[in-house]
């Protein structure tokens, strides 16, 4: 019992990536070496036009870190931000593979939709 349920739990949490998680992960990929909380919020607003909350981004980043798709380190100190260092996130190989897999899966699905013609 214990064994089975634990196994299922682990497999589920390992494979699944939510929509927002995917969005944040993509942004980390786009921002390269300058992916941190504020930058991602700004980037999402500029590129997708969606206002997201800072804390939500943070939590998502940590979750992605737990799953092994991103890793983080503290950047150097700057004069802005009251001298506080940034926590810089970078995509791991696993994260990149995940993004790619999701993109391909979506593309495969997209191809199956009958091509609509516009007038």
């Amino acid at each position, binding site marked *: 019992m214990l*064994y089975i349920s*634990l*196994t299922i739990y*682990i*497999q589920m949490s*390992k494979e699944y990536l939510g929509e927002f998680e995917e969005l944040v992960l993509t942004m980390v990929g786009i921002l390269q070496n300058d992916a*941190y*909380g*504020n930058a991602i*919020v700004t980037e999402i607003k500029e590129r997708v036009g969606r206002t997201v*909350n*800072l*804390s*939500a981004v*943070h*939590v998502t980043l*940590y*979750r992605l870190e*737990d799953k*092994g798709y991103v890793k983080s380190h*503290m950047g150097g100190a700057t004069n*802005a*931000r*009251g001298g*506080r*260092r*940034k*926590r810089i996130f970078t995509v791991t190989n696993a994260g990149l593979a995940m993004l790619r897999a999701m993109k391909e899966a979506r593309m495969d699905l997209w191809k199956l939709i009958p091509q609509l013609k516009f007038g």
Partner: protein
Amino acid sequence: MNNVKIPAWPFHLLAWFCPPALYEGIEGDLIQQFECDVEEAGEKIARRRLFLNTLRFFRPEIIFRNKFSTQLIDTVMFTNYLIIAYRNVLKNKTFSAINIIGLSIGLASCLLIFQFVSFELSYDKFNDKFERTYRITNDRFQNGKLIQHGTIMYPTIGGTMHKDYEEIEEHTRLMPGGEMNVKINDKLFRGDVCHFVDEHFLSVFSFPLLAGQRATALKDRYSVVLTEKVAKKYFEVNDGDYASLIGKTIYWGLDPQPYTVTGICGDVPANSHIQFNVLVSYATLIRPDNTGADDSWQWSDMRHYLVLKPGVDYKKLESKFPAFSERYFKGDKVSGSVEKFYLQPLREAHLYSDYEYDIAKKASGKAVWAMLVVAIFILFIAWVNYINLTTSRALERAKEVGLRKVMGALKSQLIKQFIFESMLLSVIAFLIALLLAQLLQTSFNQLVGTELSLWKVIGEADAFTIAVLCTVLIAGILLSGFYPAFVLSSYQPVTVLKGRFIRSSSGNLMRKALVVFQFTASVALITSTLIVSKQIKFMNETDLGIDLGQILVVRNPERTPYDSTFISRVESFKDRLTQLDGVTSAATSGPLPGRRLGRTFDIRLKDGAGTEHYTMSQFQCDYDFFDTYKIPLLAGRKFLASDHNVNWDKINTVVVNRNATALLGFERPQDIVGRQMTFWGRDWNVVGVVGDFHQESLRSPMEPLFFIPAYGRNATSIRLSTNDYQQLIPAIESAFKEFFPDNIFEYFFIEDRYKQQYSDEDRFAKVVNIFTVLAIIVSCLGLIGLSSYAAVQRTKEIGIRKVLGASVANILSMLSLDFVKLVAVAIVLSIPIAYYFMQNWLATYAYKIALSWTVFILPIVLILSITIVTVSSQIIKVALSNPSRSLRHE
């Protein structure tokens, strides 16, 4: 922008709930956001947004991050670990079973003992004033010698102390009233134990009151408070409507005065040192014509309890008591002995009392702590075994470890894996242990004679105890997992996978030390078992100086008044009994063998040289007593029927025992015959001397005794010459009913009653037996692990030896010798330990066996043969195997 001040307090809030590791990153982002907001929307809005943004971080993902670390279990490999652990358990079913069962037994016995210990330590704690309540105890000295070490004293002590010392907040006094004999309408009830207590009793002690007034229930004369159980029995209430019982009356014994029920209290908790069924108001004892129970400085049956004011050091108060004694007792002028008073904290009443005439339900504190030590011992041995067995099987895992390392596993991951595995096994063992403990609960409860339950104990335990228990458990599981994990994970893949794998000898040394430790415990326990059972046998078989076999005792006819016809009525009853077939003789006596006797303190020899007072125990019996119990006469004569008199004041003969003769300074028994003793305010003629006998168990020495020819509330002892009780007992009952109508007929055999004194010893013996068996089993498990390991490791060596001509016997003796050496060391270590503890235990007996070297021989032989059998059974497989098989791969 830079001149805008950032409010500090949102960051204090953030620092409070945010894990430090995340703090800087979040804080920086918040500041940056704030700075943007100031430019975009102004300072006021920016501040509000900062506050809201900060507040939004107050969410479980942030707060609890890193609080529960998932790092101990590598989540990716977790599934794999589970599968491997599962396969490993199944692969070696016997080994896994031994391992898990060994651990379960250890844990289960620990759980049971823990219940017992915590119950014993919980005594009297239900009392609200537990920490401040003390018993007064009293030592009496005569001629510089301690003659009584007791909890009984004069009725005035508590009250006078309360008056004299302001440190005392409250006091109460108590006198045991023995078993009640109650008549309600036409129904008779017997056997409910009562105490006379004053109105402060229910305030000092927190016995729950179901009906009645706590402060006043025991104030007036002839008031009784019944326990719930007794109330149900007397009045057949089932609906719990106890209030309706208040004001009902009962009659006690021959007292024409009715006793009024003024309260009902809940049944006395099993963990109270005072046990009772009924409480009677102390005022009942104080008769208008004789107020001795209130103000006497000689009456000596009262127990006193004090409640001290908060913060009072009882030792300081105690140091004032010598002055108190001098003030009121003036040396031995008042009571005939020099009085010393002490305070005993209530928390010690159950476990640390060695007092005479004690009403406390007692147990040995030493034994309780010893049990706890033993429990920890067993658990330790079980864990050690677990380590031992696991590491000895490590060879089978070595290849797995090598392969994992080659595939990139880190040492830390392997450690995690093995710790996880042992945690899994520990948890399974723990569940089995819980099950075992539940199954054994009933038998265990019978053994210790208390109603225990694990859930109750846990429910009542304080947070500290639970924390300690959990820490011990978790630490044990982690530590027992850590060593095997460390050993296993340190293998070098190259050596392991090449198949040339030799283990370090340091691990061996540790394992050997563990085996020595286990066997030391086993041998010591076996020796103790033997000595305990020898002492019990000795106590049961010693010639007591009195013959208790085949004596049936009929309890006294309490409801027959003592009047001028009483003696002739008793004599007729005895005559009728002796006429019955199978009855040899019958005698009546106040006390019975096996009971502590009352003492008389101011005995002098009339016309004696000195003025010294002596103390002896007293015994009231009739003239048939010595014959019935076959107590030998040494000089003079026994009592005659003519020594008896209905009028107490006309009795003036006394018989003494050999010890009393010696106490009074006579060398030969015949010298005291014809002399006179003075006590109880008059002179007594010594008519005879009888031999000493064991009135109490062999724990107590035989005391000086004097016998008085008296009838009264006497039980009748009947010596039988037949084993056919079926017919005899109804005949005795009808005789009893004929002469003593309106009484309850109750009987028992004196020998059984006498042997009840040894119930503690019997219990102790059983407990030691069980532990011994457990220790042997667990030690053997350890030995199996070690010897099979040794045999497997030395397979090739054995093969070569066989090729070169060694016989199976040679190999067996060679391999067993290693273990026999270990056990020999254990034996050498255990003998002084066992000797020391058993000498201490035996010291509590006045009469005991001598510890000769022979008692140590049997355990040694036993443990050596167990060792050889266990080891051989493991080695023989290898010793018998064909050398070509073990050597062909080389």
